[in-house]
């Protein structure tokens, strides 16, 4: 299931906001090819950790290693081309752009076509076929021409996944892919994430234990910015400390 080489590693990663430690001395190891879930109560530091991994925040101390390379302190636009893509907890799209335009924009990013101010925008349609393939993968092919703002919530989340996939990342970071979804959408998203996770490394944050249980090979439980427990889902689920700290109130 998971090989021994870590694709992502953090060493004593710490982020302080005015004396408040949102993330504290976190040593996280994510093996290549695994699906790794981060769980924990609200305010445990999951999203902060995500922002540290993707360069949206700079750590106060500690380091982040991707494929053995130190990427601490790099900007998001420097991290993305290395093969790390993320989705956002709060849907983050270009409301007026069509779905196809979203994907063309993502696919054009590594080619440098975005710098071409002297060429017609129709040149971006060289990515049209690949865009449609990706939209098809997430079940949105028939909505390719509509602006993202007109999509239903679950469809927007699916579009987020397609955009992340467009970057063909080695590491995919999903911040609450099922946040705010109904049961039906959740099951559809689980199937979808399972499909796109094959051949990739995925780190996901989710509150829903059903989602975590169906997807994750390994689970890291965070509490107050620190790692409370780590292991396979079934092991973590029965861990006394975890039950009292988190699952106990939410899951019995």
């Amino acid at each position, binding site marked *: 299931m998971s090989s021994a080489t870590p694709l992502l590693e953090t060493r004593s990663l710490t982020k302080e906001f005015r004396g408040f430690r949102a993330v504290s001395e976190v040593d996280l190891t994510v093996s290549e090819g695994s699906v790794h879930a981060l769980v924990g109560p609200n305010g445990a530091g999951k999203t902060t950790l995500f922002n540290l991994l*993707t360069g*949206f925040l700079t750590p106060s101390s500690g380091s982040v290693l991707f494929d053995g390379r130190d990427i601490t302190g790099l*900007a*998001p*636009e420097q991290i*993305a*081309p290395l093969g790390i*893509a*993320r989705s*956002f907890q709060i849907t*983050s*799209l*270009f*409301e*007026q*752009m*069509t779905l196809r*335009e979203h994907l*063309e*924009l*993502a696919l*054009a*990013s*590594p080619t440098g*076509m*975005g*710098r*071409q*101010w*002297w*060429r*017609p*925008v129709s*040149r*971006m349609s060289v990515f049209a076929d690949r865009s449609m393939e990706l939209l098809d993968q997430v079940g949105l092919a028939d909505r390719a021409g509509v*602006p993202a*703002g*007109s999509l239903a919530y679950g469809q927007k989340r699916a579009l987020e996944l397609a*955009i992340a996939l467009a*970057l063909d990342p080695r590491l995919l970071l999903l911040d609450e892919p099922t946040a705010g979804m109904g049961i039906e959408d959740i099951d559809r998203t689980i199937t979808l994430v399972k499909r796109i996770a094959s051949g990739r490394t995925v780190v996901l944050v989710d509150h829903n234990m059903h989602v975590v249980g169906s997807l994750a090979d390994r689970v890291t439980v965070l509490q107050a910015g620190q790692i409370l427990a780590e292991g396979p889902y079934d092991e973590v689920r029965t861990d006394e400390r975890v039950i009292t700290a988190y699952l106990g109130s939410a899951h019995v």
Partner: protein
Amino acid sequence: MSEQMTASVDVDLSQPSILSRRSPWRPLLLLGGLVVLVMLPYWIYPPVAMDILCWGLFAISVDLLLGFTGLLSFGHAAFWGGSAYATGLIATTWGVPFPVAVLGGAAFAMLIAVPIGFLSVRRTGIYFAMVTLAFAQMLYFIANQARDLTGGENGLQGIPRSFFGIEAIEQDSFYFYYAGAALILVGIIIAWRVVNSPFGRVITAVRDNPARARALGYDVERYKIGAFVISAGLAGLAGGVFAISHGFASLQELVWTTSGKVVLVTVLGGIGTLWGGLVGAGVVVTLEDSLASSGFEGIGMITGAIFVVIVLLFRHGIWGTGRDLVRRWVIDRRSRPRG
């Protein structure tokens, strides 16, 4: 994230532009625009017609930032005026044909835009506006102090209008209009190309959601600097033609109210419409000219009042409101049952 939306820009890109390739309005509008461009000096005093085009391109350059990149520059007089002086100095010193001097002026504007852009695009919203204003003020004071070069308060007088010895263009403002209009047209075409290019797609993405653009791997600041420098070049082109047209460059071109006026013209025409700048310039320049020639002193009061009315009643400016009306009319006609 610290990168919130800058100026509140409300542009509906989901609607096809009436100038888009498939629109039946496109040839009609382009033809109409061309007719106006050619006939303008027949209808109004040619130097005023030239002013309209210069201010129109100046406003388009501001719209490129405000409407398409989401940056409100309050220091664009630096590029307009900076180029006016540079154009004047090049024309005076070397006696080159005026288009060469104007291109030199535009290049100068782009050159100073690189450090200014580099230092200002890290800020957004009102802070960006203030940083650009500060740089423009710096340039104003430099131009005021460097009397030997710029003529100080007297400005740069007697800029020659050399054009390959063709006397009609060099002497007659009617014929000069067409030579100047050709340069302005080049600027307008560049602006249109930029907006409808892959680069244009990226800057609108940066405007709408900078964090998402960064996560896709786009260096948001570099794209903003790129848009800033292109915009400065267009403002410089406009300012250069303006200086040649008037035969002088004065501190008026660098003063902060000029930066304010061009934002006003842009908003009046319609933010994010590109063409609106030309319409806004047409209204403001002709109004100022007719009020000034009638001896009326409170020009600012009238333009200010019109500005307030437009902003309150027509949020998308003159061009944007007209466009919306046409669209609604077309949609109404399509949806109405026949017979």
